[in-house]
């Protein structure tokens, strides 16, 4: 009797809970006003990106050579560029590119963190040592230099860029976070219990570890979005990202356009404002989500610092 009662208790509780993601969003709105503002900004740009063909008054390649370098007016809300293209429309289509990059790049990276960091942390021993030496090596190459080199080898284009940024991100430092969290979870009694009843490695990883690292993965995904967009725009700015005529916000600030910016400063303002706004929103959202989800930031005085010091000690010894 008592047994069935203890089982029934949590089950009834479970039913009241919202699905995980909805619960997270509800908590974000309730507890983190700044994070919510960030989320709304990101959402607006997503909607703009999806609806770009319907929202933009012109296509992003549409040229009116009689209206080159026009100041903002009722016909061209944000003015036109040196080729007579409507900047407002190009900004809207640019949102689409930024959003694709902002979703696809961290998605690739996060899945790779899950596999590489997860395997490394779960199995430990020689596999861990081998994988971590490799990660060490990749981390030696500073971000932009490595990205430029690889992009220079594989060539420009949206698909190439997404793959390069995603894979390089996936090989880098984020693995460490997943790995350390998996090592922490592995030591829980329920994992030992699962091992004791003969669960396979696969089952333990999927049923017991994966649900517990979900919060970390969501946080690292959100935190990665802003970085991915900034990286894409930087590479496009340098001419190694998305080739013209595609309207990447970074690309709109570079190349031929720079020669005309003194006469038409509106060309320089809006892509930068949009970039800053989107990345700001993403960082705020990521911050809010991290405060809610990251177990390392929950309760306990100074635990975070101690574990960091311990990690350092492990590296040393």
């Amino acid at each position: 009797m008592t047994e069935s009662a203890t089982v029934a208790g949590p089950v009834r509780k479970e039913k009241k809970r919202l699905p995980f993601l909805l619960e997270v969003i509800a908590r974000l709105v309730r507890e983190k006003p700044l994070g919510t503002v960030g989320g709304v900004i990101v959402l607006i740009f997503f909607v703009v990106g999806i609806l770009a063909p319907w929202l933009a008054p012109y296509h992003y390649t549409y040229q009116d050579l009689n209206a080159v370098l026009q100041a903002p007016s009722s016909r061209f809300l944000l003015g036109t560029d040196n080729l007579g293209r409507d900047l407002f429309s190009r900004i809207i289509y640019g949102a689409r590119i930024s959003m694709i990059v902002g979703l696809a790049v961290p998605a690739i990276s996060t899945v790779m963190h899950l596999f590489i960091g997860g395997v490394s942390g779960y199995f430990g021993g020689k596999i861990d040592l081998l994988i971590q030496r490799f990660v060490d090596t990749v981390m030696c190459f500073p971000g932009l230099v490595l990205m430029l080199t690889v992009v220079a080898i594989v060539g420009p284009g949206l698909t190439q860029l997404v793959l390069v940024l995603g894979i390089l991100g996936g090989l880098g430092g984020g693995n460490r976070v997943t790995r350390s969290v998996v090592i922490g979870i592995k030591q829980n009694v329920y994992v030992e219990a699962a091992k004791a009843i003969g669960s396979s490695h696969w089952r333990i990883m999927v049923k017991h570890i994966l649900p517990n690292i979900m919060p970390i993965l969501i946080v690292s995904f959100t935190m990665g979005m802003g970085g991915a967009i900034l990286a894409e725009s930087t590479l496009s700015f340098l001419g190694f990202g998305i080739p013209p005529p595609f309207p990447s916000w970074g690309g709109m600030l570079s190349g031929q356009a720079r020669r005309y910016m003194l006469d038409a400063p509106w060309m320089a303002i809006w892509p930068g404002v949009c970039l800053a706004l989107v990345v700001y929103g993403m960082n705020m959202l990521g911050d809010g989500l991290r405060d809610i989800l990251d177990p390392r930031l929950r309760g306990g005085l100074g635990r975070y610092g101690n574990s960091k010091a311990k990690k350092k000690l492990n590296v040393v010894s």
Partner: protein
Amino acid sequence: MRAYVARRFALIIPTLLLVTIIVFLSVRFIPGDVIDQLISEINVENTMSYEEARAQLEVRLGLDKPIYVQYWKWLSRVVRGDLGTSMRNDRPITEDLLAKVPISIELGLWAMITGLVIALPIGIYSAVRQDTLGDYAGRTVAILMMSVPGFWIMTMVIIFPAIWWGWVPPMEYIPFTKDPLGNTIQFAIPGVIMGASFSGGLMRIVRTMMLEVLRQDYIRTAWAKGLSERVVIVRHALKNALIPVVTIVGMGLPGLIAGAVVTEQIFNLPGMGRYLFDAINRRDYPIISAMNLIMATLVLFCNLGVDLTYGWLDPRVQYQ
């Protein structure tokens, strides 16, 4: 201590070897169409047959002999400080690079110092006055610094002063020996912008670490002794809070010094970042390899420096 330093050095060697292997092999991943284009560039005057041009290119890129022979030859040259020669103009890379190092260091130091000057006071204030209006403002500024793309601010700095006052930042490199003031202005503008971008992340670390330390028992003791706020914060808390900040500073340094590709491009400064960017534009693969090798080595040694400083600053970290 000495044994620890020796061991830490020994640990670098496998990573460094792996770095050299990756850098060395990367040349072999150049796609075929790029090779064809390079061949036609070598063979502009059509003085050679395709096979001759290809053979010449393979010698240049080190693709003509068995891989391990080439690797050994390349490695032994690199160890002696010879990074090879440019594919375009045959100039020795080491010599060219050395001329660019001071420029990059000057820019990197400006950025690093600005970053610290902005991040430390705001980060500390934010932590000491946690959850006040000032804290919110500080945190918002920190995220803003991380979000606004540096290349955009730099673009604005070039355009708007020119429109408003007809003033443009210096766009030709001014050596310090020629015009110290002009040189300072030239490096201060991009350096401060880079530093502002860098300060965002730094500010957040300072704040987090300060918050953590301020909750420790010994800080309560310091308060209980009746010490002034300034003494508690500066003498007791700050010292410990800054230890992890050393990590961020040390790891950021190589990127600020040698990775200022965008900044050097926009402000036309002939530093290491610019050197790499030009090489990538001209597909000068020996230079690209050399730069990657230098960067990775720099990062490795900065990490080593961070670890050593860490142990020196924090008596809890023991060298075993």
